[in-house]
């Protein structure tokens, strides 16, 4: 069959809202886009363990510590679901990790910001995981089956992440004046980076249209960002905290909040590698991988020894 006909069949399947499965024919561009997006998504989950992992030993109570441990474990799990889904497209996991470690594949810019107080852990759960859920829920209906199934699993687990963050934020917001200041300070620092998580404005996002046609993307960056602002502002009001945007106002006519311009030069800088923690995050990841090499080698040696013993006994 010639390429054009295959492509027609492929697009017809997507237009009929059917899923594409690993061994189906697919355009090379579709495969490449998915590998890049899923790898970046997996890397974000893995790097995302660091900002919060930073607070495990200093969580304010045993309850918070157990919750934070479970959450960081989940992030590791989410990374593994996504690497596993990416591998169905014929890429090798070691190759993906290598690309992360050498900076050839990216992860979300949000994880290049530091967690300087305990309130940052709360703010990450509430805002960063909140924004992630907004982005991820439509992906459960993504045209590529393995990605959609991985995202279903991720989304189920993610809602606990957001709730625990909001709960921790509530405790601080209703606490002493010092705790309230800490909560406000965290909101001040995480608000704009969270809005940037939805990516560039629609008019500056050239690949979006193709991703939409391929059923990888269901809603535009600006649509999802607007939805996030609309649901999050009332939550900030409940907490008695102020969203750090002087232009933020309720627009009766459209039924949406209007908000100020995002500072895209900051986004670009963090993307380039000049965020507050880029070097530290990557160095930590590479060190963890290298320091774990002996475990992988020992496991392989043990497996080989057992296999040899079983063969001898047979």
């Amino acid at each position, binding site marked *: 069959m010639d390429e054009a006909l295959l492509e027609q069949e492929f697009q017809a399947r997507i237009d009929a809202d059917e899923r594409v*499965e690993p*061994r*189906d*024919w697919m355009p090379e561009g579709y495969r490449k886009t998915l590998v890049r997006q899923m790898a970046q998504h997996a890397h974000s989950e893995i790097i995302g363990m660091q900002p919060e992992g930073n607070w495990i030993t200093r969580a304010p109570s045993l309850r918070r510590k157990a919750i934070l441990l*479970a959450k960081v*474990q*989940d992030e590791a*799990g989410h990374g*593994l*679901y996504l690497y*596993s*889904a990416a*591998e169905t497209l014929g890429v*090798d*996991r*070691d190759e993906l990790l290598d690309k992360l470690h050498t900076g050839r594949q990216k992860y979300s810019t949000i994880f290049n910001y530091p967690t300087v107080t305990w309130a940052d852990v709360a703010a990450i759960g509430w805002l960063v995981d909140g924004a992630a859920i907004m982005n991820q829920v439509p992906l459960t209906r993504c045209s590529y089956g393995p990605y959609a*199934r*991985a995202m279903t*699993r991720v989304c189920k*687990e993610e809602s606990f992440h957001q709730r625990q963050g909001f709960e921790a934020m509530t405790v601080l917001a209703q606490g002493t004046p010092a705790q309230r200041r800490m909560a406000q300070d965290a909101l001040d620092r995480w608000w704009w980076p969270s809005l940037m998580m939805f990516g560039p404005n629609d008019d500056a996002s050239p690949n979006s249209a193709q991703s939409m046609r391929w059923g990888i993307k269901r809603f535009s960056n600006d649509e999802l960002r607007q939805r996030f602002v609309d649901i999050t502002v009332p939550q900030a009001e409940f907490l008695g905290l102020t969203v750090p945007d002087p232009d933020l106002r309720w627009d009766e006519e459209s039924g949406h909040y209007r908000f100020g311009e995002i500072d895209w030069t900051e986004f670009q800088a963090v993307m380039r590698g000049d965020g507050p923690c880029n070097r530290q995050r990557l160095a930590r990841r590479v060190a963890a991988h290298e320091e774990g090499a002996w475990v*992988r*080698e020992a*496991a*392989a040696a*043990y*497996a080989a020894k*057992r*296999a040899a013993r079983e063969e001898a006994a047979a």
Partner: protein
Amino acid sequence: MTQPLWEVFVRSRRGLAHTHAGSLHAPDAHMALRNARDLYTRRQEGVSIWVVRASDVVASSPDEKDAFFDPAGDKPYRHPTFYEVPAGVENL
């Protein structure tokens, strides 16, 4: 040094069949089972796990999909809805 890939199947509770959950890398079956427990049953999603080496799975090819599944295509009489039940007849 890539470890082999394992497909993971989880029985969510007694009475149900094992269902494909995903895959993971592990040096041997023993480690694959332990990793599968940590990765796919962190919230009591399973009471039993199977792991199978991905390279041992034999699959039908999507290219031959039409020809392969064709034989069942023209046999609607295998479904009960094919048959007309006369009015007034019950328990059929």
